[in-house]
């Protein structure tokens, strides 16, 4: 359960370019559900995701994770929560070039200092699940768009997070690949993970796997539809 209380985010506070991206968001996101954030461009979806995912702090308000207040924690704890609780899937797959798909997948686990052999086994297993076994040793720049995105998904799963956060995951995918992605989301749900997605794509928010749709406009929540 993730709870946001009166969360505000102001960029460039006190400067001429001051901009309020979120103004007083109250929201609770249930565990083990698939929640979708929709809203026009610039409405603050990405900003909200990065606050929930402990990537940035709100200007005001509180964020609680499983009943624990996290907004005031020092960076080290935030990072620790981030890497253990959240797996991120980015719109641009954000893989690191020049190294193999497998290394990319294992990167989030490096700072945890786990033994190499079990880590690699787990990575290979996850890659196999997404039909990437034969691409493990490929450099990421050789991968197709869909493969690259799946590598990004595996990377998000490597530390076995309880919550998956995906920002516009289907923006670069065709219909078929988008359907495949939704299939993966369905599996997450079956594995009792919490999933949070932002999207513009009706294909995503009209899919039956979605439990709840949250609408954002000008940094505020709109009345919920479902």
């Amino acid at each position, binding site marked *: 359960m993730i709870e946001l209380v009166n969360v505000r985010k102001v960029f460039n506070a006190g400067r001429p370019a001051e901009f309020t991206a979120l103004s007083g968001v109250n929201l609770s996101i249930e565990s083990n559900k698939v929640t979708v954030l929709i809203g026009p461009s610039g409405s603050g979806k990405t900003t909200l995701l*990065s606050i929930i995912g402990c990537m940035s702090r709100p200007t005001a308000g509180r964020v609680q994770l499983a009943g624990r207040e996290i907004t005031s924690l020092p960076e080290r704890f935030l990072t620790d929560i981030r890497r253990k609780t959240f797996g991120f899937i980015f719109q641009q797959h954000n893989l690191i070039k*020049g*190294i193999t798909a497998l*290394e990319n997948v294992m990167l*989030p686990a*490096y*700072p945890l200092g786990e033994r*190499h052999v079990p880590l690699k086994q787990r990575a290979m297993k996850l890659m196999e699940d997404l039909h990437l076994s034969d691409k493990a040793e490929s450099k990421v720049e050789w991968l197709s768009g869909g493969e690259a995105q799946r590598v990004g998904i595996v*990377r998000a799963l490597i*530390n076995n997070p309880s919550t998956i956060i995906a920002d516009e995951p289907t923006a670069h995918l065709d219909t078929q690949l988008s359907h495949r992605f939704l299939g993966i989301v369905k599996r997450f749900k079956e594995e009792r993970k919490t999933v949070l997605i932002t999207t513009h794509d009706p294909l995503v928010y009209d899919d039956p796997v979605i439990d709840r749709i949250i609408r954002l406009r000008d940094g505020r929540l709109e009345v919920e539809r479902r």
Partner: protein
Amino acid sequence: MREWIEKQKYIIDFTLSSLLRRKAKNIGLLALYTLIVFILASVMFFTHAIKKEASLILDQSPEMIVQKLVAGRQDLVPLRFVETVRGIRGVQAVRGRLWGYYFDPRFGANYTLLVPPPTAQTGAAGNGSRRVMVEGEPDRNAEGSAGPLFDLGADEIGVGSVVIGSGVARVREAGTGELMLFRAYDGEILPFRIKKILPSSSQLVSSDLILIDEADFKRLFGIADGLVTDLAVTVRNPTELSTIASKITRRLPDARPIIRDEILRTYDSIFNWRGGMMIVILSSAVLAFVIFAWDKASGLSAGERREIGILKAIGWESSDIILMKFWDGAVVSLTAFLSGVILAYGHVFFTDSVVFEPALKGWSTLYPRFKLIPFVSAEQVTTLFFLTVVPYSVATIVPAWRAATIDPDSAMRYTGE
């Protein structure tokens, strides 16, 4: 603890592969860095080795030398000076020395001709001369305090023969047993047989040396009996040196006493002048280096910033990023440092500083190819380390720290390749 080690391993691993990914840039960087270390190290090894040799020469020279001046010009010293000086209280021993420079127009080289003292060192104060110490190779320890390997006595040379330094042998392409011709003061050509060539361990000391018998020396230069080049004086108490010097000038107004410490100072200023030139090179190299390090360091490319953003977004902490940058710097610095130092060592001690040759041309005709004794102290290496690795590290810390504080959510806002 085990996790900590694993973590370092992963991060070093990733750092190395990151370095390889930017191969062109990093090889260029490494090459430049190595070159700078190489220049600095060469300069340092070279000046230190030369100073070392100089101090070896001076360690062997007497505490005080007495010359005779005639109208301000150095002249031969009559043996009666010996008695007078010996009569001064505090003087332990006085020896007359016979030596002189000889210019060989055919080879354009200057030799130092020297009559070694008789092996019976104590007596023969009347016509004794400068003792020759030849440095031995094997015993040279890090302190470089090896004593003379052997003393060459005058009786070992014999009339009609000479013992020559290796520089002389090289310039004249002469070998043992061959004849060497000298033009005496009166124009007569005197042949001498080369009896021996001095070992070349310490060439700066003995390179231009020619050891010759007393009678031959006097014949060559036309020196009458009862005259020597100068006097070597030893005293009982070194603190009395200046008192004794002034007593000498009072009793012998023509005499000019020279105290070793004064020579030392002169030598020092010569070498420091060389050192001074080197300092200019040194400081400009350091400066270039700092600028280069700063430039390299402050310019985090967009690609690198993006990568750091991604790493932070997927769960790397600021300290992990700093750790990565630290290993990055450590790998580059240490590689460059080690290869630069090793190259410089080879350059100075095995290739005779070929790179510096143009700068050393003025040294002496005999010296352009002299070999220095390998001498490197921990202190030098440490100084070098602090001159190179530390500025580089400092220059990379700031951007590393800045990079580490890149917001993780920057990875979410990245648009387009």
